[in-house]
């Protein structure tokens, strides 16, 4: 009996507490000046604070990619706030999705229901994008989003009007890379994927395009999250008689693969996509990384000096060099701040006005020129895929992949 009574009381108390919480305070907001928090979205002025949201993995197995992006965005925002470039302050509301399509909706709704968030960077991955893009775009008013990393080639076709992407999708990178490989004499190419959504997507396109161009292809996959020992697959690749390898995957795994390939004595060209192009690759692979090619829809840091400044500032702030998608997120944040400032020129920026401004943007970032098409992709003229190569620990730009031989 005792326990039961106690349970009853607990339940009753809990019910009371829950219900009390529900008893929302309901006063109408009659005062203009307040705590400086609650109503700030409604008053203009120089101390206005807007928030940019971020959805991506900050914990869990894919956390590093999300953290890279969040750091990039944080850097951009801190720089802008410190410089006093804008009349308003910007804050970042980062929500952890664990990179999980099932958990991303909670993160997304947290941003949607925060009235001070006027735009969102992300979602970082393609999977979670598919899960939450409709929530962002069907919210009233729709939330403008700019993804700096979700490269799946179906996202632009899902009819989400609030969605934008500042990187080329898997198809673009894959097909131009395939074109280059075929043009420069590859007869048989080994296409390896890390079995992630990104890696499988870009590798799949690559294999398809190569076959279309008459190049023979050997396709395989190695799970990037569980595999550390690339020696067996490197041996297979070395013995496959291919004259080039394309790896669809991320930087840390590419570095391991590079080492294993050297050990196995692979002689062919080695190419990977944007996911592999970072200092994590160069430091991780060491000498073995020499000569690797990267296809990337981004500008060459030697041409764009701002990129160098970015690298220096990032390294100084986070004590680690920028990694995959950090520069893209940096660009996305700057782009959104620019859009917010344009939207706030004629009063208070709202999601609607920021979305309008975003659609009209013509912005030069450190990675690319950003001007959106109607479907949210960057205009094809700016979808230049550049080829990069690592030379003794540094990644050097070789130029537009279409013009290279």
């Amino acid at each position, binding site marked *: 009996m005792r326990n*039961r*009574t*106690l*349970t*009853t*009381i607990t339940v009753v108390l809990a*019910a*009371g*507490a829950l*219900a009390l919480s*529900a*008893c*929302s*305070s*309901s*006063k*109408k*907001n*009659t*005062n203009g*000046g*307040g*705590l400086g*928090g*609650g*109503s*700030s*979205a409604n008053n203009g002025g120089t101390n206005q*604070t807007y928030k940019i949201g971020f959805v991506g993995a*900050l*914990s869990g197995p894919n956390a590093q990619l999300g953290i890279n992006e969040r750091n990039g965005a944080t850097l951009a925002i801190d720089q802008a706030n410190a410089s006093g470039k804008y009349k308003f302050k910007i*804050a970042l*509301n*980062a*929500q*952890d999705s664990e990179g*999980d*399509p*099932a*958990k991303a*909706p*909670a*993160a997304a709704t947290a941003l949607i*229901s*925060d*009235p001070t968030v006027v735009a969102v960077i992300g979602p970082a991955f*393609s*999977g979670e994008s*598919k*899960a939450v893009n*409709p929530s962002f775009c069907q*919210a009233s008013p729709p939330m403008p989003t700019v993804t700096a990393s979700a490269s799946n080639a179906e996202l632009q076709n899902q009819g989400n009007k609030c969605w934008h992407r500042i990187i080329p999708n898997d198809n673009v990178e894959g097909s131009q890379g395939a074109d280059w490989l075929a043009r420069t004499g590859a007869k048989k190419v080994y296409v390896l994927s890390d*079995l992630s959504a990104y*890696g*499988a*997507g870009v590798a799949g396109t690559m294999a398809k395009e190569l076959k279309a161009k008459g190049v023979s292809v050997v396709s395989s996959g190695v*799970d990037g999250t569980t595999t550390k020992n690339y020696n067996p697959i490197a041996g297979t690749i070395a013995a496959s008689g291919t004259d080039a390898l394309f790896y669809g995957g991320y930087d840390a795994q590419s570095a391991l693969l590079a080492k294993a390939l050297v050990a196995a004595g692979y002689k062919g060209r080695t190419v990977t996509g944007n996911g592999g192009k970072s200092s994590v690759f160069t430091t991780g692979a060491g000498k073995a990384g020499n000569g690797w090619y990267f296809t990337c829809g981004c500008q060459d840091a030697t041409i764009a000096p701002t990129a160098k400044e970015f690298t220096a500032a990032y390294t100084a702030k986070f*004590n*680690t*060099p920028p990694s995959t998608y950090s520069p893209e997120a940096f660009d996305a944040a700057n782009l959104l701040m620019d859009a917010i400032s344009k939207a706030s020129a004629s009063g208070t920026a709202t999601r609607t006005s920021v979305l309008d401004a975003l659609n009209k943007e013509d912005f030069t970032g450190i990675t690319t020129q950003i001007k959106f098409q109607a479907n949210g992709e960057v205009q094809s003229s700016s979808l230049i895929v550049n080829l990069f190569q690592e030379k003794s620990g540094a990644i050097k730009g070789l130029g537009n992949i279409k013009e290279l031989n």
Partner: protein
Amino acid sequence: MNTATRATLRRLAACLLGGFVLALMVGRQEGSLNDFGISFHQAVVGPRIFVFLLIGLVIFVMVTFWPRVVPYLTRPGVAPLGAGLLAVLAAQTVMNWYDPLVSSTGNGKFSGVRTAANASPNLSSVSVAFFGWLAWTLVIAALVACAAAIVTRVRVFGYVTAAIGIVGAVLAYVAHSAVVDLDGGIDHSLGVYADIVGFLLLACAGITAVHARAEVADTRGFLRKVMGYRPGLPIAALGVILGLLAFSTAGWFGALQINDTLAQAHSDFDGTGISSLALNYLGWLGWTLFGAAAVLSLAATYLRNRMLAWVSLILSVVGVVLTFLTLRSMTDIGAQVAPQFGGTWKNLGAGGFLACIVFSLFAAATAMVISSTSAGVRRNVRAKAPTDELPVTSMVKGFRRSSNAMPLLIIGGALALFYPPTLTLTWQNVLVGQIGVFVLLAVGLNVVVGWAGLLDLGYIAFYEIGSYTTAYLVGALPVKPPSWLQMSPLVSIPFAILACLIAGVLLGAPTLRLRGDYLAIVTLGFGEIIQILAVNNPGGFTGGPQGPTVPHPRIHLGGINITWGQDNLPYWYLLLIMLIVVIVLFYRLEGSRLGRAWAAIREDEVAAQASGVNTTRVKLLAFAIGASTSALAGSFFATQVGYFDPSLFTLQASILIVAYVVFGGMGSLQGAIAGAAVLTWLPQFLKAQVPQDDRQMWIGALVLAMMIFRPAGLLPAKRRKAELEGLDAAASSETAAVPRAGAM
């Protein structure tokens, strides 16, 4: 050095080590590639480490001197003191005080309000002081005074404590309303109410400490006396208090930042073409209904009159129905006026739902009267022939005998129905996509792990099979089903269940002769294989790592048209139906011969066989039933989330579900539900408490601590709990806990 000193030193070392580890855990520091040890240095080099070592030292001192405190712990007043302190601490550290601040600066907790209040010139000085220093001072003063009261039993200390408690409660209310008055906005925060309850409990502690005559407190006895005085009366009283709040101050209708109370809603909706019933409800009918139900249920519970109770029960049900009709017509009007801000059932405040909860409380109170008066009759009968009617299982016994079961069900049901609409969008999402789905999964796995005692580390595979079956049948996969087979998501559920049944039997049949850990590794392998199959996309069936996009469900049945979309609430009610059905079915199953056979093979497989239990069949049934529950969850999940990919179905997820079941209390249905609910709630809760990057670390630490301090789980099965207690007595030597090797 004698053993006592050595033990003390060891404890000191452990406490200091704990402080050290805490220093590593707390803080913003993050490691980096360039300087590997940077965060380690930041964490332990410099003065901050001493703070943490000091914490360790304080814990050491507390543990060491604990025996001296123990004699006082049984004194009257300690229990309310502890509860009050806990409530106040929770309120002033982790709970939200003002929701609008959460969205604007990311911290709506007590400390956040303090920062905002300090910067605000328009706030009354008392409120600023309360948030600034007064609240904590009051807590400490109350603690000191109450401790003095408990130890010395001098009356004045008790009165001082009571005074401080009451002042604290009043000030908390005043300060919070001052903040809300100043800034407005929609606020659903809990903090102030927890704080008030805490302060009032502190006040009670003071009074109890000096007034109780007993040397040893009998908290449970006291509570029993209160609750047993007039069954249902406390619940009815709670209903009255909440009802007054609901009908006077709570918001009923709000778009964006404006929230109408009942009276304001009446004036706002007057003349808008709202139905006359709704207008009357807003005007006088609501109040009248509430008043009548309140008076009747109070009278019924006090007088224990069945007649009055029935009338009040009916009135309460009518109240719920009328409230709903009113809410509906309010939102219909709202949808006409401002379609961009939503339609039917949108923009409702908490008031209406709170009113429904209030009416449900009255119903529960009167149900208690009804069942207690009839239970009295039955109890007399039982007293004469104690062995006459023996219940099916001890759990069933407890449930049937309890006259509280009905009211508890009513309250629980009311909360499940009416509380979720008042949650924020994020929490609604967590409730559906995380808590609800995983509760369903845990309930299913509980059959396999908890009841039948088979360790299944590949349970997620069935979830996956269920999800993909639904995706296939709705045509979301690259390989389309023949057109006659293509169906809508909800219709595919039975097929998903069938697919999982087959998969469960296919897995189970060859492997079930393996014991314990061998079965674990085989099921683990099965889970991995299914996941890799989905990733590798054989024959282009699954679509590979990119996963399918599944349409949301809709029902077109005759005149009924229900469409689910982005909004989470409708999914919640769909899921609630599924959950209730599954739980009721499983509850019956547990008490059936199959449930007992499962328990038998879990306890002793050899003896079960010798008693004629066909262990293979029984185990297969466990696998099949567990798998089909998983299919239900998977099917629901696929259509609710709208998109999924194979990365969701990893081994880690399987292990987590096992953790939910065991964490909640192995072998108990309530335990599995509670475990899953708590462990899926926790990550979201921690988002507001610790850096997001560190959440999993804290979850790990909390799970570890929980298992250490409560190894049987949150709500252990009754039978299992008894078994544990039996072991405790025998566990004088350490070896008792070493499990026997299963002799076959």
